[in-house]
């Protein structure tokens, strides 16, 4: 039976997710899986930038996105949201951060709240894909270089030609006056 749940109205997650959850085999079963992801989400909210294996980073990303979206939509006066924040953030001062810092920071965002970068593998190792998961608008220097085309030779020449053209126009204007 494939039927949508209608009891809750949930805003769309703004990142690509897997159609099915990753199981992350755990001796404590599905409960242990959530406990494990909870650590990652707490770290992410606390440090704003964490390095992880891809599978774990990608899975935790969805949970972090949903938590922030809930905090923005319902605010801190909504009991289910507060319970959820209380579960997902194991350090209680981070609950304050979620509602007073992150919800305010992302209030008018139209894109995702987190970013996932590829990171170099650990050598020697099992060559698992590594990623860096970060909250957008964090205080750290950016990870990705801005690829500016400003210093390309044809852009410099074009810029000079443009300046020449403007100077010429100004001279012509002076002469006609």
């Amino acid at each position, binding site marked *: 039976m*494939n039927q949508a749940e209608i009891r809750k*109205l949930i805003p769309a997650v703004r*990142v690509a997710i*897997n159609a*099915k959850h990753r199981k992350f085999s755990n001796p404590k079963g599905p409960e242990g899986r959530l406990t494990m992801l909870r650590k990652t989400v707490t770290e992410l909210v606390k440090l704003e930038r964490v390095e992880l294996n891809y599978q774990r980073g990608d899975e935790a990303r969805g949970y972090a996105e*949903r*938590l922030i979206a809930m905090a923005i939509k319902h605010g801190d006066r909504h009991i289910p949201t507060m319970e959820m924040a209380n579960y997902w953030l194991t350090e209680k001062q981070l609950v304050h951060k979620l509602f007073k810092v992150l919800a305010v920071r992302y209030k008018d965002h139209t894109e995702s709240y987190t970013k996932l970068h590829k990171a170099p593998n650990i050598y020697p190792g099992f060559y698992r894909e590594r990623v860096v998961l970060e909250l957008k608008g964090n205080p750290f220097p950016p990870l990705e270089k801005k690829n500016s085309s400003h210093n390309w030779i044809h852009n410099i020449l074009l810029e000079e030609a443009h300046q020449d053209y403007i100077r010429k126009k100004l001279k012509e204007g002076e002469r006609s006056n």
Partner: protein
Amino acid sequence: MVMAVVAAAALRSSSTRLSRLLPGVCGEAWGHQARRGAVLRVLPFIPTQDPDVIKKMPEDFRAVYPEFLPGPKPEYRNRLREKLERQDMLARRSVMPIPEFYVGSIMAVTVADPNASGKNNRFVGICIQRGDAGLRAWFILRNVVDHQGVEIKYEMYSPLLQSIEVLRLEKRLDDELLYLRDALPIYSTFPLDMEPEVMQEGAPVPVNPIKVQLKPRPWHERWERKNLQGVMDLGLPERFYKKAKLHEKPWEKYDLMKEYRATIPEEEQADIFREISPHYPLMESTRRRGKRKRVLPSIS
């Protein structure tokens, strides 16, 4: 459905022709082809540019017309099919109005039946379950006829259905009433000549807080594990409750992504509503007329 078949054929022959036929349908982010072994990724939903589209969606849209929301499993989703199905559903509704009903409502359904006298068959019963989406949406009616429990599953958009009436519009404490199969027959016995009941216009749908007495075990399911609200004390030995405790999953309510994967996102629901909104006033007027019909006998 004829239209859907034609469109599917067109899809196979040339996708460019189809995209010209139905602009804005084909180039969407959700159109996935499930390949064996490949991990299916669900791309973020791209809502329409209208920022107020969510505000325009009525609060009760998803509760009154749940079958207009597609099934949430991405491997079975197909935007084009869903859109065509909604068109067919609206076309069917314009011929045979489908009233608002919930699990727990008492309904009467008339079906075309070549073997019945008068060529049709009317059945009255309580709706115990409602399922699936789109043209495949169905509900199960249950009644006890001659001391024998009878359940009939009706497909809401089947062309064999001639009319659906709601005799008593109400909800129950649970989402499914499958436990009525193991309850005393009195709780699912309704007279076949039941009159439609009076209801105040504009009043909210009442919730019937009745608690049902179950028969002693054996049962169809282990009801002590289902956290049922609408049953009386089950009267089982302590070991059953201990076992039920072991099977509880209290962490599931915190699984944000599990919850998300089971729903259709708000923005997408709003888009679906926007798509059918030209037909919405008509749907609402039929819904209101259905309620008024129930009010009139009391006045006269």
